């Protein structure tokens, strides 16, 4: 038996080891990927708005009250799925929802919001993906809840739902929530 013919088996075994860890050992649930950011100050956002590239958008504008940050893109199927849910959420809350249009084509994004409706209080662009990297975004869509004190207190991975909003976000909005 020549050693090099063992390489495929070993490579696959390592891969399966990862999968096993993901499913079992790591207590891994893709919906609940641990964010090292939870409980830490929200990373700064400093960009411009989608509607007007001359208008700055920074996270400082929203500090003092809780707000939601949602990473999306027109290329992302899950974002399309969650879009009506966000429209519904926007109707039932006054917590500002900040959309970050991630690595996207600007006209397509404007068109998308025009066609499907706009649940966001503000939409910033993240053309080079730097904001997403700062926030540790793993894949669109991802949604963060930032407390009045400016700390990230919750992260939702995958398409957002009204149910998740009521179950995971609303309780954390109460004073002392999210601890």
């Amino acid at each position, binding site marked *: *038996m*020549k050693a090099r*013919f*063992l390489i*495929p*088996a070993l490579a*696959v*075994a390592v*891969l*399966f080891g*990862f*999968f*096993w*860890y*993901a*499913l*079992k050992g*790591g207590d*891994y*649930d*893709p*919906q609940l*990927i641990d964010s090292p950011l939870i409980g830490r100050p929200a990373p700064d956002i400093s960009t411009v708005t989608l509607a007007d590239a001359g208008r700055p958008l920074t996270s400082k504008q929203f500090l003092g009250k809780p707000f939601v940050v949602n990473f999306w*893109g*027109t*290329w*992302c*199927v*899950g974002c*399309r*799925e969650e879009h*009506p849910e966000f429209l519904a959420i926007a109707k039932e809350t006054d917590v500002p929802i900040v959309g970050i249009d*991630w*690595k996207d084509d600007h006209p*397509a994004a404007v*068109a*998308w919001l*025009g*066609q*499907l*409706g706009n649940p966001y209080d503000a939409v910033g662009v993240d053309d080079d*993906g730097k904001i*997403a*990297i700062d926030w*540790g*975004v*793993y*894949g*669109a869509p991802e949604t963060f809840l930032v407390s009045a004190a400016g700390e990230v207190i919750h992260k939702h*991975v*995958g*398409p957002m739902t009204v149910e998740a909003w009521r179950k995971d976000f609303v309780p954390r909005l109460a004073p002392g929530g999210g601890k």
Partner: protein
Amino acid sequence: MTAELGQIALILALCLTIAQAVFGLVGAARGWDNWMAVVRPATVGQAGFVVLAFLLLASAFLANDFSVQYVAMNSNSQLPTLYRVAAVWGAHEGSMLLWATILALWSCAVALLSRSLPLAFASRVLAVLGIISAGILLFILLTSNPFIRLVPAPFDGNDLNPLLQDPALAMHPPILYTGYVGFAVAFAFACAAMIEGRLDQAWARWTRPWTTVAWLFLTIGITLGSWWAYYELGWGGWWMWDPVENASFMPWLAGTALIHSLAVTEKRGLFRSWTLLLALFAFSLSLLGTFLVRSGIIVSVHAFASDPLRGVFILGLLALFILGALTLYAWRAGQLRSSAGFELWSRESFLLFNNILLVIAASLILLGTLYPLLLALMKLGTISVGPPYFQLVFLIPVIPLVTLLIVGMHAAWKRARLAPVKRRLVSIALAGVIAAVLLSLTFGGRPRTLVFVGLALAVAAMLSALSVPFDHLRRRVTIPRGVLGMSVAHFGVGLFTLGATVASAYQVERDVSLGMGQSANVAGYDFRLTDLRSVEGPNYAAREADVVITDAGGRVVTVLHPQKRVYRVQQQPMTEAGINVSWRRDLFVALGEDLGNGVWSLRLQYKPLIRYLWLGSLCMALGGLIAATDRRYRIALARERVDTDTVAERA
């Protein structure tokens, strides 16, 4: 009773698959003919029971038997009959049963069509298929049983996911699975040959038609999926690089590499260990696709069933099948020696590079699909991988791949000479460049290198593929089906490249808000909203628009009727686009939101040559069909004597 009978049928099938595996392996190892004689009947029998279970589930759907939980979850008394059948595979449990049914049918086909193979070899092939079937049936019975009763039975069902209520998507899973699962046959042939230690050219010849047929189904399945996404998801894209799409595309790339490498192994006895590895990987990637979709390990819209227990079970099965086969490979491949050689300028080298490029493409896609997950697990931070990554890494191997195809079709085996085909190749290249210039001028816009390269390669590939049968005609020699199949499939590659390049580069897309009687212009066509009304479908209510399209000369081209549907039970809105098709372009209208005051948002698109992309894919599948029906696969295989010089040395 149907549910209970279905359950019993599955259990009986499981027992028979175990018999199929044990009698096959032990009988062949010991040379006991009476044991091996059990294998074929066991295979046909298990296939019968699995098909029976499938039909029983289908009949529960047709009879609206909502006391069966799976039926209640995925059907409704208002659901049209066609979709009640499609609902059988509309969710996890049923689609696994479909997977098992298709595997049973493939196994049955192998059992019936392998009479000319040596008995021991055929027994081992069926035994390996038996092991796979047993694993999948156990998985269904233990974690995903579609026959579980619901007490008390609900009055009506939850309805089928509206996204799946579409003719193309109703056909998509059976065809796609036929392709996926068909690679199990190549896998089983490879495993049987390795167990036997007889890795000769005959093995490659037996495997080839099965692989080609599986590949052509996979090609059609992926094409249907892409077509469906285009008109049903409502935004006119045809490939999203979604993890589930990638899961079907990776086995396709490995399978494409495999059918090319099998050609070399069959004709020249070369690349044997490589071909084996590809046969193992094509099916492994299919299984991995199932795993990724079923385990919920990667979040995707397509992943409609995620359950960690199922994930662990599938992972165990995968480890057993794939690691088992690869260990066997590590043991046997080392014993292979290649005697034949070839020169750099030969068909062998072209096919070698083809294989390398296809494997690179598949690996980069696999990497992109798994990378975010692996990094997150290793706590190395997180990264995003989206369509921009896939588009880039896919183009890198594909451009040289199409270039090689244009030249490689004219290279002979072993040692080719450039001189006789030089003139032909130069004229093909020239024609490609001229056509690219003309096409760029026709479509206008600012010139882009990548688009120009795409156009030139597409036209050159089509011409190069056409020149092969024409050359045979000119020399008055009959063209073998294998060669004809190759040129049809490669013509399809060119057609696909043309459609994909033009549609991506020259599409025009506008999102507009129109009131009644207002119009908007897209690429010289005038789209006017003339009417809006409510219509009722069997299980949905819709708003339907009339959009009159006139061309630059003021002539009416067509009236499209895009719909915005709301399905009653699940209250999910769906876009049903209106599309006008012609050989030059598609005109596409999707109805968006009601903006109030009678104004609606609409998405208007002009997609030039987009049909050629699917037509090209179907051409590839047709080429596969022509090649798979080559006469030489039908001659009595038993009479073939094994080339002793290529037989592996027994350890």
